[in-house]
């Protein structure tokens, strides 16, 4: 059955964010793109199970996240069974994301437990509501909230920040803080 044009557009427009999410999950652009490709193949093969009018992005994120959990984590366990491996793979590929400026931040992010990392990304970067993130992760809304809180606290610890000034001199920060006062 041919895809409805609006469905095709919705899938296409979800791809950039889907990639960013995949990269944050597996910490490697090539593997992330494979993950996105497999997600799209699965989604398009089962496009009839998508309910029109619901959130296409959330649907695709759910497929990607479940696929990652079942396949990639299994595969990774065979190689290395620690979250440290994720951090190490990032350190060895500082240019994977293009810019070096987020390196320290990415390394700290990579050290978070995967549950916390995905919750923080979904809510803090992908722009999903707590409810949507809970749907994607298949858990309670309260669980997502506490994971996000723990992720933020841990991230601040890892980056040794107690106030925004600890992020170092940064004009953007100063501007943001000044306008916020």
């Amino acid at each position, binding site marked *: *059955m*041919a*895809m409805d044009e609006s469905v*095709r557009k919705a*899938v*296409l427009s979800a*791809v*950039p*964010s889907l*990639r*960013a999410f995949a*990269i*944050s999950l597996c910490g490697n652009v090539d593997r992330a*793109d494979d993950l*996105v*490709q497999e997600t*799209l*193949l699965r989604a*398009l093969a089962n496009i009839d199970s998508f309910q029109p009018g619901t959130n296409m992005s959330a649907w695709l994120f759910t497929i990607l996240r479940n696929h990652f959990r079942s396949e990639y984590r299994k595969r990774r366990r065979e190689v290395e069974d620690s979250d440290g491996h994720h951090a190490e793979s990032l350190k060895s590929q500082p240019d994977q*994301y*293009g*810019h070096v400026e*987020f390196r320290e*931040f*990415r390394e700290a*992010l990579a050290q978070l437990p995967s549950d916390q990392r995905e919750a*923080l*990304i979904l809510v*803090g*970067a*992908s722009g999903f509501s707590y409810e949507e993130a809970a749907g994607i992760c298949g858990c309670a809304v309260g669980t997502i909230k506490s994971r996000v809180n723990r992720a*933020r*606290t841990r*991230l*601040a610890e890892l*980056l040794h*920040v*107690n*106030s*925004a000034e600890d*992020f170092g001199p940064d004009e*953007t*920060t100063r501007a*943001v*803080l000044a306008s*916020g*006062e």
Partner: protein
Amino acid sequence: MAKGFDTNQGAAGASAELESLGLSMNERKPVGQQNPMEAAATRNKKPSSKPAKLGRDVQARLGQQLRAMYDEVVNQGVPDRFSELINRLNGDEKKKDGH
């Protein structure tokens, strides 16, 4: 006593700093008479040793960094391999249906 003066000035400085972050030192004002040793311990306690909630400024900055990192990928748009994949699958399906 001059030493005590210095400490007080330091506390005042810290207070101003905290207030600029939207926090208040009011809760740390001693109630009634306080043991001098305890008072000193309270003064010397750094704000960072409190397992308190993250300040709004820190949360905002973490969020900003997170989004900047994420958007760096988002701004790369849709790589050809994916637009081609979607169009190819769609085209294949159309052929099956139509012709």
